[in-house]
């Protein structure tokens, strides 16, 4: 019997989000002001930053993709096995500019600036070296330690020199950085900060996320989604266009049940084939076994993502593989009833059945191509998986029916059993 049991083993198979459990987020990018030719470059840069941020969360195999339809650019993020989606969204959505501000006479916070090489510059995370890290002080509270580059050091010395005894405000993306107690972080400057400094009062998670953000760079454009129609569209930052989280347990339960059900169905199918078509039925079973094994081999080899609809597509294409065999066998039966010898019936069966197989499968290919295009619409990654699985399945089914089945049949032609019409279910 074909090795259908452990070929469904999950080692080496790339599973889709619906089978692994996890989150799928789609953010649009606000690219107003960027020339169309530059947009792809910006998006690719953003993708790199987000990949690093997401990796820092400790998620295995996250997938970050840039999506583009006409004028719209978006980033789609798959986070398998994630437990804290809110934290991920915060980390992904923020642009990531840390800014140091001082209070003016009226108590307002304005960006603190200094002069380097004759230029007026504000002190931001742009001048940090990318080696920020989180440590703990003697009491065990987390501290964020950062290091300035040359320009940053000069600015920092000028600014903190001016602000001794006064508060230095720390702002993230325009908003005051808040500590674990919820209060804004604005420490009083005790001494001049030149090379390294530290930020205290953050919660451990916030410190780690901020460190990640500072090290991997800021996002060039804000992420969020557009609301409203083209003319009066308003960009809402940090909120994803699309968010879907699948619990891992639901996924695991579903896959177990569905695979078992599928296997039961396949066994019934194989029994039917043998009962109705006798000898060719057995060959069809072998052929289908080859088909199933090849399908899984292709999936593992090319790391094609398997989703639950993909499993259904596999089943459908199995039905088509059977169909091709059935077409050939029915044809063979007819030829036998018409009085041909077994050998001639086999050959005639194949050649006469071919136009039907070809035409019907091509129409299915057309549906697959349309499905693949439809899956290109945002958020429909499962549809794409289905389309690819169905396409490969149908193509492979044609191959196994024509070549594998025919080879098996020709091989057994030598035995006397094969030349009796009764072996094919035809009474004479």
């Amino acid at each position: 019997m074909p090795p259908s049991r452990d070929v469904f083993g999950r080692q080496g198979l790339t599973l889709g989000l619906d089978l692994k459990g996890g989150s799928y987020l789609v953010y649009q990018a606000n690219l107003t002001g960027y020339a169309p030719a530059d947009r792809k470059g910006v998006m690719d840069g953003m993708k790199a930053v987000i990949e690093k941020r997401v990796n820092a969360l400790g998620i295995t195999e996250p997938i970050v993709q840039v999506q583009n339809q006409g004028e719209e650019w978006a980033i789609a993020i798959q986070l398998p096995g994630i437990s804290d989606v809110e934290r991920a969204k915060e980390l992904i959505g923020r642009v990531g500019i840390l800014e140091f501000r001082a209070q003016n006479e009226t108590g307002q916070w304005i960006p603190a600036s200094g002069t380097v090489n004759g230029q007026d510059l504000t002190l931001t995370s742009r001048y940090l070296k990318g080696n920020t890290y989180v440590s703990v002080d003697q009491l065990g509270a987390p501290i964020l330690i950062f290091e300035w580059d040359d320009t940053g050091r000069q600015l920092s010395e000028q600014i903190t020199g001016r602000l001794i005894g006064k508060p230095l405000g720390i702002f993230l993306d325009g908003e005051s950085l808040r500590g674990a107690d919820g209060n804004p972080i604005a420490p009083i400057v005790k001494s001049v900060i030149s090379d390294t400094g530290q930020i205290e009062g953050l919660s451990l998670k916030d410190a780690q996320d901020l460190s990640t953000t500072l090290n991997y760079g800021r996002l060039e454009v804000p992420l969020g989604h557009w609301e409203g129609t083209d003319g009066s569209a308003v960009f809402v930052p940090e909120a994803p266009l699309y968010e879907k989280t699948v619990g891992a347990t639901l996924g695991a339960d579903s896959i177990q049940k569905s695979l078992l059900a599928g296997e039961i169905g396949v066994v019934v199918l194989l029994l039917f084939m043998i009962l109705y078509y006798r000898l060719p039925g057995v060959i069809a079973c072998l052929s289908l076994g080859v088909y199933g094994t090849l399908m899984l081999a292709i999936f593992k080899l090319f790391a094609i993502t398997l989703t639950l609809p993909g499993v259904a597509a596999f089943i459908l294409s199995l039905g088509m593989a059977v169909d091709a065999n059935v077409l050939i066998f029915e044809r063979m039966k007819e030829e036998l009833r018409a009085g041909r010898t077994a050998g001639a019936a086999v050959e005639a069966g194949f050649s006469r059945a071919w136009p039907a197989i070809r035409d019907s499968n091509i129409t299915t290919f057309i549906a697959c191509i349309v499905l693949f295009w439809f899956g290109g619409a945002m958020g429909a990654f499962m549809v794409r998986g289905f389309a690819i699985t169905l396409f490969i399945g149908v193509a492979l089914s044609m191959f196994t029916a024509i070549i594998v089945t025919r080879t098996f049949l020709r091989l057994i032609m030598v035995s006397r059993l094969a030349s009796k019409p009764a072996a094919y279910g035809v009474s004479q």
Partner: protein
Amino acid sequence: MIDFVGKKRWFFLASAIVTLVGIVCLAVFGLKAGTDFVGGTAITFHFSEPVEQSQLREEMTSLGYGGATIQNLGAPSGEGLFLVHLGEVSSAQADELAKALGGALGCEVTVEDFYSALPTVGMKTAQDAGIAVAIAAVAMLIYIAWAFRRMPNPFRWGTCAVIALVHDVFIVVAVFSILGWLAGVEIDALFITGLLAVVGYSINNTVVIFDRIRENTSKHISSDFAQTVNSSIVETLGRSLNTALTTLFVLVAMFLFGGATIHYFVLVLLLGVAIGIYTSICISGELLVVWEKREWGRLFSRVPVAR
């Protein structure tokens, strides 16, 4: 030999009635659009104790979510599993709601599945779906017309195949309209996927039968086209039924024993395959006969119509 072509009036009548009922259902109940199409949030709640849908609705209303749609996904005994469709809600709010429900109903409630989309995405998905089906149908029509180009009037062949196809898709959609009204079953991107799969699969049968008609026509087995078509249908009957049966075995098994997430998706495929076999045997070939022999007039004259 069964005379399929001879009974074509009955088949057409049956299809016409079912189509009419389908139109009425769609007009009256419409389709229950899921989050993919109207936006909003869909949350799957898992309850550690069995919960009645009415209880859940009461609690949701008292918590301020009275307008929510609730669908029972069917959990193993001793537990509850419900899909709730709300307006825009954040995942943090969903967790709060789970806690509140747990407190009110006296059991443990967890958020198994959380899905939030904005209406703009949904509209686009709906449009894309419609365009996808249309493009697929036209592409298939053209291919069939080309594949059967040596036959007289190849475009009729393509058109008859596509009419049967549209009929299949329509009936599946109508069935889900009824299910939406009866059990709150929602239409989502997976449903569209299933429909497109049906489009791809059900055309298969029709093409195989047409292929036999083509062969028999070339062999001139009968001077009467109706006879030729009927013989073709009967000759391929074994294959048509076997293929449908084999696919149905697996689909029925998955429908009865498979997981909750693709339950209705498998139903779409099931219905599509079953109805597809019916139309390919009883409708497409017969349509071709009527067209070739220009019997449209005679077809309607026998329909009992009050004069």
